[in-house]
C-alpha cells in the first residue's frame, strides 16, 4: 500500500514538471532541455531557506518560486533569441552550468554529499509526516497547479503560443510578440517546476545534485514526446506511463544492478520507435519540427 502511495506522490510531482514544460515544448514548440534546472533550484532554494534561514514551509515554497522565476528569466532572455538547434544547445548549456554549480559549490550545497535531514513540511503548525498525509499535501499542490496550467492552456496566451509555434512569422504579423510570449511561457514553466522541487525535497528529505542532471531533463522531455504535447492528456498519459514502466519492469524480476540500464535502453528504443510511428506522441496534438 505504501508503495502505491509513493508511486502516486511521484506521479503528482512529475505531472507538475511535465505539464509546466508542456507550455514551452507543446505550446511554444521549443525543445527546452533544462527543466531539471528549475526543479533543482526549487528544491535547493526550499531546502536552504528552511534549514539555513529557518523559514516556514509555505513561505519557502513561495520564495523558491520567486527565486526560480528570476533564474528562468535570466536563462530565458538569452536562450529565446534562438530557435531550433541553437535554442536546444543554449538550454542544454545552462543545464550543464547550473548542474556544475550545484555539484561544485560545496560551501552552499554540500556538492556531491547532498543535504540530508530536510525538515518535513508543516502548514499552520500541522506537521506532515505520515505517507498518506504527504499524499494529500502533494495532491493538493498538484491539483491547484494543474488547474492553474489548464486555465493558461485555454487562455488567449495559450492560443497565441500555439499560433507562434505553428507559424511564427504569421503570428507576428497578427501582432503577437514572440519574445515576450515565449519568455512568459518559459518563466511560468520554471516557476511551476520549482514547486515540484519543493515537494520533492521535503518528501524525500534528502537532495543531491544527481537528481537534477541532464538525464533528468531529457527524461522529462521523453515523457512529453511519448505522451504527446499541446494539450492536457498527452503529458498525463506520458507521465503515468513512464513512471509506472520501471515498476512494471520490476515484476519481470530483473536484478537491481541491471534494471536502470534496461530501463534506459527501453526509453531509447521507445523514442526512436515514436519518431517513426507517431511523432506527435500517444495523445498529443503537436508534431515535432
Amino acid at each position: 500500500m505504501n508503495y502505491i502511495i509513493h508511486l502516486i506522490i511521484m506521479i503528482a510531482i512529475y505531472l507538475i514538471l511535465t505539464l509546466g514544460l508542456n507550455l514551452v515544448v507543446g505550446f511554444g514548440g521549443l525543445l527546452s532541455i533544462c527543466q531539471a534546472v528549475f526543479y533543482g533550484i526549487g528544491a535547493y532554494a526550499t531546502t536552504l531557506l528552511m534549514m539555513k534561514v529557518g523559514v516556514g514551509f509555505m513561505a519557502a515554497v513561495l520564495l523558491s518560486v520567486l527565486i526560480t522565476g528570476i533564474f528562468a528569466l535570466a536563462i530565458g532572455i538569452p536562450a529565446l533569441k534562438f530557435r531550433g538547434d541553437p535554442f536546444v544547445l543554449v538550454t542544454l548549456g545552462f543545464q550543464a552550468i547550473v548542474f556544475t554549480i550545484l555539484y561544485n559549490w560545496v560551501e552552499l550545497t554540500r556538492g556531491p554529499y547532498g543535504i540530508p535531514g530536510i525538515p518535513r513540511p508543516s502548514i499552520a503548525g500541522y506537521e506532515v509526516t505520515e505517507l498518506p498525509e504527504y499524499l494529500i499535501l502533494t495532491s493538493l499542490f498538484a491539483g491547484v497547479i494543474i488547474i492553474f496550467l489548464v486555465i493558461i492552456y485555454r487562455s488567449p496566451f495559450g492560443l497565441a503560443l500555439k499560433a507562434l509555434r505553428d507559424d511564427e512569422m504569421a503570428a507576428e504579423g497578427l501582432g503577437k510578440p514572440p519574445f515576450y510570449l515565449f519568455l512568459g511561457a518559459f518563466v511560468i514553466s520554471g516557476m511551476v517546476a520549482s514547486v515540484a522541487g519543493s515537494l520533492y525535497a521535503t518528501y524525500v528529505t534528502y537532495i543531491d545534485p544527481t537528481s537534477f542532471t541532464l538525464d533528468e531533463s531529457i527524461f522529462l522531455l521523453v515523457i512529453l514526446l511519448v505522451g504527446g504535447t499541446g494539450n492536457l492528456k498527452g503529458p498525463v498519459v506520458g507521465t503515468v506511463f513512464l513512471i509506472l514502466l520501471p515498476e512494471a519492469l520490476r515484476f519481470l524480476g530483473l536484478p537491481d544492478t541491471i534494471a536502470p540500464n534496461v530501463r534506459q535502453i527501453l526509453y531509447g528504443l521507445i523514442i526512436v520507435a515514436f519518431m517513426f510511428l507517431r511523432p506527435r506522441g500517444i495523445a498529443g496534438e503537436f508534431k515535432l519540427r
Partner: protein
Amino acid sequence: MVGLKIKNLSKTLLGMEIIRKVTATFLPGRITALVGPNGAGKTTIFNLICGYLTPDNGAVFYDDEDITGLQPYQVARKGIGRLFQDVRIFEGMTVLENVVTACMPYASESPLFPFMRPLRLSRLYKHARERSCYWLEFVGLYAKKDYPASELSFGQQKLLAIARLLSKGFRVMLLDEPASGLSPIATKKVMATLERIVSEDRDKTIVVVEHNMKVVTEMADWVYFMNEGQVAFFGRTDHVLGAREVREMYLGF
C-alpha cells in the same frame, strides 16, 4: 498626411541590391497594385514595411509616424496587416481557432489575464467566436469551421488566411498574391470583398502584389510598376498598363 508612405528605401541582401531608392505612397480608400517581373523586389517591400527586414536606407511612414525598424508585431499593432504569398495558416488548430486567435485583443494575451478578468475573458471569447464565424461564413468556410486547418486545400487555406486578416480589422492590408491558387469563383469573391472594403470604408488602404493582370486591371486604382528593385512607372492603372514601354518590357505585347 494619412496613409502609408515609403521614402528612399534601399536594401541589400547577400551582396545583391534588391531594392534601390524606392519611394511610394499608398493612399486610403484606394487599391494600389505593385506589379513587375519576378525578382523585382515587390515582396521585399512588404517585408521592409512590416519589419521582417530592416532597410539599409530610407524610411517607412504611417500617418506621418516613422515606423522604420519596428518589430513585425509592433507594425501589426499599428494596424498594418499582411497576407503572405505562401499562406501560413496555423496547422495545429481548427479553422475556427485560426480566426479566433487573430481577433483576440492584445491585452487578453497576458498570461495573468484569465485570472484577473475571468468574466471579461469569456465575453471576449464569445465575441471573437461570433466575429470569426461571420468572416468564415463570408469567405465560404463556415461549414468547415471545426476541421483541422491542415486538412484544407491550398485555395481554402488562402481564404482562411484572408478571413483571419479581415476579422482583425487592419486599416492597411498588404496582400501578397491574394488571387494565386484560387479558383476563378473564389478569386472573384476575394476581389469583390476587397473592392467593397475600400468603397465602404474610405479609411482602408489596400496594397496588392499580383501577377494576374486581369485581376490588377479590374481591381486596382493605382499601379506601381517595378523593375530591378526600382519603381519604373506609376500612376492610374489604365495609364501604366496602357503605356507602350510597360507592355514591351513586361507584358510582351
